[in-house]
């Protein structure tokens, strides 16, 4: 499993670092260091020389993500990365989304799954352009999508004709949050059948989302579920995150989710018009 980053094709890494979310530790003197670290920067008495690298390990992915974002911007497309655990309801939500957005926005889907075209097939028939990535097919069976994988899927989509692109990521609460795919926003589907403590267990995922869709809300009468406790846990980990309560099955909240998508697209177009 895993994809290899090769440097033998002669490509260069730029060392003018523009850290969006990295912090330059040379300016912060007060964090703890293990004993074997940051000893003597000058005393190479043992005959060693320290070469500063400062290269982010996900730099290659992030450069591809930036290229994806540029392509989206050039085509006037708003891209959303949709993540969740397996079975939370991403595909059902998307099917209802496509139904409701018909005539409002031209939608494309990048469908990510380790195996099968089941989700892509379920989304067929609503006029959306769909590009399927099976990560087991040429990507080593990865448990998440990354920027190069999404980029490979873009060539199969008529970007110029689309308004909105939704990347349906592989069902996984851990890894997808680590990989920028080039989207403008991240949305997460959480379902009430998953337990109130999930934000505490998966803080990186819940923090990576700009919006959490709380799905299967219609099932609450059949569960021992404390929605207030979930919201308290979510607030601890990602205070102020946008939330929409929904049931993809009954249709509850789908209109608000579609409004959120449309508003995101409207905002980006306004930005584009000004810029």
């Amino acid at each position, binding site marked *: *499993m*895993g*994809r*290899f*980053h*090769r*440097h033998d094709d002669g490509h260069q*890494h730029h060392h003018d670092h523009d850290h969006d*979310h*990295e*912090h330059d*530790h040379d300016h*912060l003197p007060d*964090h*703890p*260091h*293990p004993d*074997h*670290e*940051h000893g003597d920067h000058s005393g*190479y008495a*043992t*005959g*060693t*020389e*320290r*070469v*500063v*690298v*400062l*290269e*982010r*390990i*996900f730099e*290659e992915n992030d450069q591809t993500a930036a290229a994806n974002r540029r392509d989206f911007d050039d085509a006037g497309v708003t891209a959303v990365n949709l993540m969740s655990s397996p079975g939370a309801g991403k595909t059902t939500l998307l099917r209802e989304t496509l139904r409701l957005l018909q005539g409002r926005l031209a939608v494309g889907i990048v469908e990510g799954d380790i195996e099968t075209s089941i989700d892509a097939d379920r989304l067929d028939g609503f006029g959306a352009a769909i590009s399927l990535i099976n990560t087991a097919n040429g990507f080593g069976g990865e448990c998440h999508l990354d920027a190069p994988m999404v980029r490979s899927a873009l060539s199969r989509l008529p970007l110029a004709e689309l308004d909105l692109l939704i990347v349906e990521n592989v069902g996984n609460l*851990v*890894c997808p*949050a*680590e990989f920028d795919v080039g989207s403008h926003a991240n949305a997460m589907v959480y379902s009430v059948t998953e337990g109130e403590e999930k934000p*505490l267990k998966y*803080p*990186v995922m819940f*923090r990576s989302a700009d919006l959490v869709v709380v799905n299967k809300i219609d099932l609450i009468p059949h569960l021992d579920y404390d929605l207030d406790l979930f919201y308290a846990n979510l*607030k*601890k*980990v*990602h*205070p*102020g995150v946008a939330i929409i309560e929904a049931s993809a099955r009954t249709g509850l909240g789908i209109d608000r989710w579609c409004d959120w998508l449309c508003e995101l697209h409207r905002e980006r177009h306004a930005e584009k018009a000004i810029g």
Partner: protein
Amino acid sequence: MHELSICSSMLGIVRDNAAGRKVRAVHVRIGEMRQIVPDTLTYCWSLVTEQSELEGVELLVERIPAKIRCTGCGHEQLLNELAFICGTCSSSAVDLIEGDEFLITSLDLAGV
């Protein structure tokens, strides 16, 4: 998570920056919020460097604790329990200022 493929990426970065010179150690900085297990990383590093010119090169992990800063009162604190709330003014308008790092900071090369 993905420590093996990450080590493969790191191999390339190290080779690129070593430019043929002999490497003694690789310094990597990992923030607490990254879903990477340092012990697993160092183990996978030994696997990917085995029988290469980098065999035996030490991977030295600097772990950065998660730290938040309140956008209201400016108070900074370590994130001891998982709660993004200012310990001084109880505001939840806080930024994560440290803990998200994941980079190779430097290499120790053998002196000439």
